[in-house]
């Protein structure tokens, strides 16, 4: 008997709740202006949070207002639905790691494969400040552009921010100790950049406290990644796959990717076109060489001698510089795990040796292992390392500004392999190892 009463009471409560909900629905007012098919000037005036006076002469708009250039700071003040907020656009020519499409008030940026074997693509919808966020992108990250506060999780992005002139938006970085870009270092010394830690040790609380519009990071698909924690905490995180580009020009093209967040497409186009021109002229310069000197890379870590694959970034540069990389026939874009014997056997007579660990002198090489002295390149002194521009903490500018200076990297290599082609070029990133001090 008591059970029946309880059931009846529950049913009654349920019925009342349902009735209440039913009554509430018809009275809800649709407040989003984007549901309206046509935008009249009066509605635009009430939607935009500015005090622009409504136009007195109000013909039905047959032509949408057009902007002369992208909005570089702040919000767009006179948005009319359907207008093109981004008259300056980029197209992705060489890079394969990202795509962008333009849709009036927003751009859709996709990173199909942020790391090798990534299980999903990452989509970012960049909508102009002052316009309503577009619907229908539940899976994507919506970001209002131009962004105003940025956290960078790699030194690779610093030089690009500097080149675009937006370093003043940098409020946080994984670490400033290894940065070489002057404007960033100066800003860090002034206390304007907060260090947030790297990889999976990123200090999420610190990042949230900085209230960034965007955190620029990369993923490797393993437990050292910082983005899972950041995404979980609701921080707007953008994954860059720039490091996966095997071609140096494609990697440099990612300056357009960064520019998209700042509406600085015009600037990025100018910069990249100049890079392409310089790079191409260097390729043409070295294209007709008759002799290609042999070269091998790196030094062993313990028992393993990592050697760049034949389709890797470095291999591309060496080929373009007119050298014969001993592992250029390999088809892998990743590093090969070789051992001392194998490299010794194939590279004993090679003419050049590049990218030698952290060494700056031949003494260091010999001290590491006296067998390095057997290599022909060692004996002729043709050993070069890409650590000429290293800051006191060990941060190497090759990986920082090098990204947007593939032409300088190529010029350095041409100067090394074919000095007669560029006699006046001073090495920017590379240095020849200092000769032996004894015997």
């Amino acid at each position: 008997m008591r059970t029946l009463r309880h059931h009846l009471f529950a049913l009654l409560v349920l019925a009342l709740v349902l009735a209440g909900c039913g009554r509430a629905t018809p009275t809800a007012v649709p407040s989003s202006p984007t549901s309206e098919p046509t935008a009249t000037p009066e509605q635009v005036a009430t939607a935009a949070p500015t005090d622009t006076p409504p136009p007195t002469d109000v013909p039905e708009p047959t032509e949408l207002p057009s902007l002369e250039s992208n909005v570089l700071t702040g919000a767009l003040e006179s948005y009319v639905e359907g207008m093109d907020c981004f008259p300056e656009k980029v197209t992705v020519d060489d890079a394969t790691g990202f795509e962008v499409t333009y849709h009036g008030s927003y751009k859709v940026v996709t990173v199909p494969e942020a790391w090798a074997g990534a299980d999903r693509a990452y989509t970012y919808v960049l909508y102009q400040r002052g316009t309503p966020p577009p619907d229908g992108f539940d899976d994507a990250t919506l970001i209002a552009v131009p962004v105003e506060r940025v956290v960078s999780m790699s030194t690779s992005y610093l030089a690009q921010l500097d080149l675009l002139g937006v370093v003043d938006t940098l409020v946080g970085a994984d670490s400033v100790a290894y940065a070489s870009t002057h404007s960033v270092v100066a800003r860090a010394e002034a206390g304007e950049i907060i260090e947030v830690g790297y990889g999976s040790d990123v200090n999420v609380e610190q990042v949230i406290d900085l209230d960034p519009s965007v955190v620029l990071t990369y993923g490797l698909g393993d437990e050292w990644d910082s983005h899972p924690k950041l995404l979980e905490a609701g921080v707007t995180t953008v994954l860059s796959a720039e490091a996966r580009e095997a071609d140096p020009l494609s990697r440099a093209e990612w300056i357009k990717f960064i520019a998209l967040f700042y509406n600085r497409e015009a600037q990025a186009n100018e910069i990249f076109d100049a890079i392409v021109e310089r790079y191409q002229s260097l390729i043409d310069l070295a294209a007709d060489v008759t002799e290609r000197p042999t070269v091998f890379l790196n030094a062993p870590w313990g028992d393993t001698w990592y050697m760049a694959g034949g389709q890797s970034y470095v291999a591309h540069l060496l080929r373009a510089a007119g050298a014969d990389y001993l592992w250029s026939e390999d088809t892998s874009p990743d590093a090969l795990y070789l051992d001392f014997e194998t490299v010794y056997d194939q590279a004993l007579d090679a003419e050049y040796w590049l990218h030698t660990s952290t060494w700056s002198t031949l003494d260091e090489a010999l001290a590491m292992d006296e067998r390095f002295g057997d290599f022909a390149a060692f004996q002729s002194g043709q050993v070069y390392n890409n650590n000429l521009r290293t800051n006191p903490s060990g941060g190497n500018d090759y990986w920082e500004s090098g990204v947007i200076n593939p032409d300088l990297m190529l010029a350095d290599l041409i100067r090394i392999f074919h000095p007669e082609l560029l006699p006046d070029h001073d090495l920017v990133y590379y240095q020849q190892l200092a000769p032996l001090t004894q015997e």
Partner: protein
Amino acid sequence: MTATTETHASLEDLPRRSAALSRVAFGGLVVALVLAFLLSLALGSVQIPLDQVVRVLAGGDAARDSWTKIVLTYRLPKALTAVLAGAALAVSGLQMQTFFRNPLADPSILGINAGASLGVAAVVLSAKTVAANTLLANLDVPGHLGLVASATIGAALVLVVVMVLARYVNTLTLLILGMMIGYLTNAVVSVLLYFSIADQVRAYVSWTFGSFASVTWRQMPVLAVASLVGLCLAFLLIKWLNAFLLGEGYAQSMGMPVRRARLWVVINSALLAGTVTAFCGPIGFLGVAVPHLCRALWGTADHRILIPASALMGAALALLADLAAQMPGSATVLPLNAITALLGAPVVIWVILRRTPMRAGGGW
């Protein structure tokens, strides 16, 4: 240090294979060792025809200059290092198992390996990579010897602490203290790792994989002298080690100077383990598995058999592990420690699950 007839009698009571079988086993082991040594010279990631290898070993030149150099400056010192390191680790592990009466004791139980790791970490993971390299270069200390020297200093520091403790505390306490020292030093290494950049971390981690290949002829004399001295010392300690098997109280009643004996066993084991770790990085499992294999094969706990047997078996297994890690014919290389674990762990499992003679006579 004179053996008494009573001690001999009780030892001969231990069950073991007949003397003839024992000699056959030794003979077989020596043959296996020689074969493994020759295989190490003949096989590697670069395929060198056997006749070329023989020609180089006989003092001639191979068809290719690089082959001569590979056999003489790479494979030969590597094989020699494996022999010395394998023997040293096995004998060191055996002594630790006897001393602590613990079948799972290994050379690193006193924290010596951890001390060596701390020494290496202090050099490799110091804040400024570039500065550290130039510092070493300016001191005219060869870079790699810098690693060896720092590992030795680290190991020696821990050894001194352990030696002082060994005079005053009993065995069980020493075991626990050694383990705690190990944990402490590993904690410091962790903190150093945390604050290091990727390159430094990678350099340190590469060192922890263990390798017989990094010892060159220039460094060989130190390794050879230290290991051989340690091995000879172990032979001299045989009687004391056998006495330990019967319990410290009994040994003392037989006239063995227990304190001095303990000190020497600790020193010897630490010398062997520290030397190998300094030159090859921390190498695991050989020290634990080899003594058990020998006990099972010879059916005895008598150190007169076990010390030479462990030395030979350790050398042979080290050579085989190195061969397996090299993956002959392919250019890739696996970390040595992974292979020793793959070989050693099943052995330990098998031994523990079997009923072995050591339980009857060893007093575990």
